[in-house]
Every structure is written in structure tokens, then in C-alpha cells.
């Protein structure tokens, strides 16, 4: 496989995943803003900006942090490189340049979601915004479905690899920001933490039901963290994403005979996370743990790029 093709596929995986995650985040934020007993409003949208690492750039636009403005920035803005529109533009552009490596269904899912946003000028209020992000989620599911029907070859592995790396990053950020935001200085873990925020986290990763299945206690922050970081049964958890990265790198090395730095880092992470308990994470500090995780994830990303000569 051409190195350029591998790189484009990997980034398709990342961008589609990112677009979907942002869509979920917006839905959960709208919910948090509207449904909670004490309207969260501005704070909820501020935290959404933080999770997507778009707070600084949004500040530079000089706009007021109203739900409408932030929603539009996360969804349609061309200035925001991580907006859903920018992600879909990039995913489609990559997909177009490597169409030969994608199945027709996979291409169509990307192209359709791109077409769906193409002529949209504004998202309007929260109701319309839901109307914009729901189809994005549906198309992302369609893309994932199409992906699973592709040949299990390198193309499949590189897309999945990109998606897994992106997912690990998103999940870690989500927990870190929400947790950090809500835990005032000196506050004890498990203290007065806003329930709604933790529900939002679960909503963002569609894990409410999963949580009830796995834990019989009510909503406990450390259990939410346990679920999202360590439980392999949850496909979006950090542990599951780390496993998936190892799996796809293995598949690639089996087909190509290539083994390198990326494989080494990925396996190390897998071993490390296997040996970790939620108690030790909280003992060291959740924020510290997640920050390291995110940095390591980025290191793995660049090791992948150099191992496969993304150039």
C-alpha cells in the first residue's frame, strides 16, 4: 500500500471519529443545558469548547459564549479546524484521494454526511442543532458498518487504527475536562459533584445503560471513571481503545512483516493499563493520569506516522 494512501486512510478514521464525537458532545451539552434541574447554560458550552480544545480559538473570534455561538462554532465553522464541518471536509478530501482503497459503501457514507452539511449556513437554536447533528451520528454509524464489511486488509486496519487513536484521545479529554471543571480546588473526590455533569459524560459516550448494567450502586464519579478508563467491555473506554490499537498494528505487521516503535509503545501501554486499578489512578490524581495518557497517545500517533512513512 502507498504510504500516502495509508496516511489518508488513518486520517479518515480519525476525522470521522472526531466528527461523531463532537456531534455526541453537542447533543449531550444541549441535554445538559436544557434538561437539568439547574440550567447549566454557559458553563456547559464552555466545557464543550474545552473538551474539543477549541476554547482558545473560539476566544479569538471575539464572540460571546452563548449556546448558539458555541454550537455554531463546533458544528459549522470553517475557522475551527475541529468543527464537524471541517472534519467532514478533511475526511471527504482524504477519502476522495484514496477512493480506490475504500468500499463504495464507506465512501458513500462519508460523501453523504458531507453533502448533508454542505449547504447549511446556520444551526439556529438547540432544536435545529439537534437536527443537524443527529444525521451526522447516523452517517458515522453507517460508515462504521460499511467499514466492518470491508476486506480485512491494510485499508481496514489503517482506518480502524486512526479511529482507535482518536477515540482514546477523545475519551480521555472528556473525562479530564468534565472532572476538572467540576472539582473545585481542594474538593474531595466523591464530594459534591454535579450529577448532571457525570450523566452528561455517560450520555456523550452513550454509556448510561452500560453503566447501570455494570454497577449496581447509583451514579458514582469514580465508577464512571472506572467504566470509561478501565472497562474493556465498553468499546469507547481508554482500555478498549488501547487494545484495539494493538490489534490493528498486529494485523498490519502480520500482513507486511513491519514491526517498529509504534508496536512497542502500543504494547507497553496495553500492559500498563492492564496493571492499573481505579484506586491507584485516583491515588496519583485523575487529572495527572489522563494528561499523561493524552501525551502518550500523541507520541504513539507520531510513531505510527514515521513507522509507515506518512511523510
Amino acid at each position, binding site marked *: *500500500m502507498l504510504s500516502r494512501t495509508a496516511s489518508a486512510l488513518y486520517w479518515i478514521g480519525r476525522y470521522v471519529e472526531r466528527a461523531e464525537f463532537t456531534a455526541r458532545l453537542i447533543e449531550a451539552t444541549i441535554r445538559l443545558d436544557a434538561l437539568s434541574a439547574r440550567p447549566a447554560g454557559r458553563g456547559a458550552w464552555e466545557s464543550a469548547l474545552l473538551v474539543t480544545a477549541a476554547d482558545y480559538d473560539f476566544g479569538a473570534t471575539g464572540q460571546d459564549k452563548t449556546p448558539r455561538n458555541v454550537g455554531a462554532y463546533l458544528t459549522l465553522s470553517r475557522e475551527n479546524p475541529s468543527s464537524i464541518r471541517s472534519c467532514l471536509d478533511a475526511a471527504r478530501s482524504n477519502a476522495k484521494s484514496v477512493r480506490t482503497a475504500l468500499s463504495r459503501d464507506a*465512501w458513500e457514507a462519508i460523501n453523504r454526511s458531507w453533502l448533508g452539511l454542505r449547504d447549511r449556513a446556520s444551526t439556529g437554536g438547540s432544536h435545529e442543532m439537534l437536527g443537524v447533528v443527529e444525521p451526522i451520528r447516523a452517517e458515522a454509524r453507517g460508515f462504521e458498518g460499511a467499514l466492518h464489511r470491508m476486506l480485512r486488509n491494510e485499508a481496514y486496519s489503517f482506518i480502524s487504527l486512526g479511529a482507535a487513536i482518536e477515540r482514546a484521545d477523545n475519551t480521555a479529554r472528556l473525562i479530564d475536562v468534565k472532572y476538572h471543571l467540576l472539582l473545585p480546588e481542594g474538593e474531595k473526590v466523591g464530594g459534591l459533584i454535579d450529577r448532571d455533569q457525570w450523566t452528561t459524560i455517560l450520555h456523550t459516550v452513550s454509556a448510561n445503560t452500560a453503566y447501570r448494567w455494570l454497577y449496581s450502586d447509583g451514579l458514582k464519579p469514580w465508577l464512571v471513571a472506572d467504566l470509561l478508563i478501565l472497562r474493556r467491555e465498553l468499546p469507547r473506554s481508554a482500555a478498549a481503545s488501547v487494545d484495539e490499537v494493538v490489534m490493528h498494528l498486529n494485523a498490519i505487521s502480520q500482513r507486511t512483516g513491519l514491526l517498529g516503535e509504534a508496536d512497542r509503545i502500543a504494547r507497553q501501554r496495553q500492559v500498563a493499563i492492564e496493571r492499573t486499578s481505579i484506586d491507584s489512578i485516583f491515588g496519583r490524581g485523575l487529572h495527572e493520569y489522563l494528561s499523561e495518557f493524552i501525551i502518550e497517545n500523541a507520541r504513539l500517533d507520531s510513531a505510527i506516522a514515521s513507522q509507515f*512513512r506518512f*511523510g
Partner: protein
Amino acid sequence: MTLNRAFDEVWGTQEGRDGRPEFTELAGWINDTPHQELDRRQKAAEAAFRQLGITFAVYGEEEAAERIIPFDIVPRVFTAREWANLSEGLVQRVETLNAFLADVYGPQKILKDGIVPPELILGNPQFRGFLMGQKPPHGIFAHICGIDLVRTGPDDFFVLEDNARTPSGVSYMLENREAMLRLCPELFQIYDVCPVDRYPDLLLETLRSVAPASTRGNPTCVLMTPGHFNSAFYEHSFLADSMGIELVEAADLEVDDDIVWMRTIEGRVRVDVIYRRIDDDYIDPLVFKPDSMLGVPGLIAAYRAGNVALVNAPGTGIADDKAIYSYMPEIVKYYTGGDAKLPNVETYRCREPQALKYTLDNLDKLVVKLVDGSGGYGMLVGPTATQAQIEAFRAALVAEPQRYIAQPTLALSTVPTLVESGVAPRHVDFRPFCLSGSDGVQIVPGGLTRVALQEGSLVVNSSQGGGTKDSLILSDTPGEFGGGQSQSQVIGAQSQSQGGR
């Protein structure tokens, strides 16, 4: 010759509603299928094309302005006999083009014998003098030719243009057929239609057959594209995909010691055959445009060393130059000893004083073209031009007559086409695709029919708003192809009824 009495491929020259005897059933289908139903199917086809991204980027417009080429649901049909005659003429034509190129870049006998004026070749910007004496692998220059044909009567076909560089449109031949099989299955019940879907296999076979002698093992063939901003990118990816070969951009290739390599995740892989969809001018910045980012430095050196086959070979542009075109009847005779089975459209070479005078006197009746123009640009269609346009061309012709040719405006045949008010005749041309490999010439029975969607218009180019139709070639051995297609049609019908529930 007036345009409103053109020969219609279904109705013939008569006013009746029965159609030509060969096409009574097609005429019946056109008459019996309600306009709304045709319209519905056409829209379904266009929606599918849009969804598949079968688009055509229009230069100078934003990427957002990607268009699909309008598709017309009423097909054009050729009888088996018509096709037999055409393909015989086409084989002769492309064999001639290859013989001509081998001669021009070799002994140049045709120039020495005074058939073609030497200055027309040697002073032509398409002539690559530095490739003199360079024989491409297996001696083939123009592996893929798109020969544009027009028709004026039941037996009157003319070659309008020979496209011997990087002719495009074959993906539409294939996709239009897919759409027709899905949307108008009954047509394939009425007629036994020759399939076109072998084209990618034949193309790959052709590429492999011209691999250079240095090839070890199975030849590695790639398709080289300028990238996804190119207007024909869909076709490039479609073809690479259907052949199962890599679609490469310049950045994926490197030349080392006169050998071409592609960069893969596993390291470098040697490339033997490049089907390049990039013009000569851009393929190698060391030889052609130094500022081009689309090319691979050293590619021409690798080609000259005999280490890679370039398809089509560099320098083929000389064969489809419009000034050379006018000599094709003589060129065919020179190399084959016989008359051209497919005649040229009568052409006035404005470089010749007599022809220039005639052209200037009859500008309102002629089509005037730049010898090196393409895509319908740089063209005067006399009968529909304004006085100002005619005068502008008059001045240009007087200033640089050698840059122009002129042709009579032909009464191009029409084919029934779906328009707003129903089905009406629209002018068409036809581009079949001819493959020349080391084992000879092969032509898939089909091609691209382009249709001018404006009433009375003769301009069919997609960049000028033309559309396309499926081109059905009827089989003369009934039943040979019918089985497979009625099968796929049954499947189509089933899924449709399920979708309706």
C-alpha cells in the same frame, strides 16, 4: 444542409411515429413510457451519480461547485451491422495512428515521401524532437485512443477528432450502463445488448502486455493522476479500482538510477507500467515545465532507458493535432494501402491560402477551431455566432492562419432525448475507446454518447453543458448476452419491490 432536417437515429428522416425498421421496439418503448416515468428514472440515476461522487469539477469554480454530467435516460442504439462497420474502421484508424507515430519518431518516411509537410511535424509544439529514435516498449505509442465520431445519415459516419493523448469518459460508458440496467431493465429484455463491463480487464491486459523487457515477474502497473482536484479524478480512481492497481500521484513516485519506484508502507516497489492521465507537459519537470508539481523528476530518463512503459507514450500529441488530422485520409492510405473506412469531416487547413480564402468568405457557415484547442474552447460555430464573434475570428485568422482549421457545420444526427416538454431530438456525437496492446487492437462494443442538451446546439462537450447517454450495441447472436443481463435485472426488480414495502 439545414440543421432542422438532421437524420434521427430512431425516427430516421421521416416524420412518422414508427421509427426505423430496426428500432420499432425502441420507438415503442419511447412512445409508451410516460414522460413522468422517464423523468423519475432519470432523476434516480442522477441522484445515484451524485451519491457515488461521479462528478466533474469545473475549472475556476470552487470544489463545492462539483457537477455531475447530466445523464439522459433515452439510450442510443447501434445495430450489430453498424457496429461491425464502425469497429473495422476504428481498428484501421488506430493502427494507422500507431504506424504514423512510429514513423514520425523513427525513419520519418512519410515526411520524406512528401505526404505530410515536414514543417507541420517538426515545428509542431506537440512534437517531442528529443524522443526521436526512441521506441516505446513493443513499438506502441497510442495505447488508448478515444476516436470522436459523428453521423449525418444511415451510413454516414465521420471521424471528428482522434484523441490519442489521455482521452477521458470511459467511466461514463460503464456507469451509464449500470444505471440503465437498474432503471430500464425492460430495454434489455427487448434487445440483446453487448456488455461493456469487460473494459477494465481489457485495459489491464493491455497495460501488462506493453511492459518493458526489464520487467521481472508480473508487471507492476499503476495509474497516475494529477490528484483529486483534476476534473477527471473520478474516472482515474474508478479505473484504478476496477483494475485493482495503485492510483498514484507524483509524490508517490521517485526515480532512482533510471528506475521508477513507488513509496509504500513496506518500502519501495518497482513500477513497470504507468498509465498516466497527465499531459506530457507536466510529467517530468526536468524535461518539461520545470515549475510543475504534478510531475516526477527523472521519469522521462527512466522511459528512455527502457525501464518503464508510459501509456500513452510521450509525444503522441502529434497524432491528434487538428492540423495533422486533415491529412489522415492520406496517412491511412500511406500505411495501409487502402482507403480510410471511416472518412474525415471535410477540413480546410487555413495555413493554405486557398483554404484560408474560402474560410474567410464563408465564416457564417463554418466551424473554425484552434488546431491545439480542446474541450470546446477556442471555437467559432459560424451559423449561431454573432457578427462580433465572426469578426473577432476573422481578425485572428488573418493574423495567424496556421493556428486554425475550418469545417462545414454538419447536420449531426439526433437521438430522442428527455427534455422538459417530453422527448425531443438532440444532436449527439460518439466516442468509442480503442485499446492497442502488443497483441493488437481491442474495442469494447460501446462508447460514450455525448448529447447537446440545448435545442439545435451542436456543442456536446461536458465543459460546455453537454450530457451523456448510454450507447447500446446490439448483439448479432441473440441470446449470447441476454441471459446474464436478464438475471441482474430480475435481482434489481426484486430489491425494488422490497424497498417499496
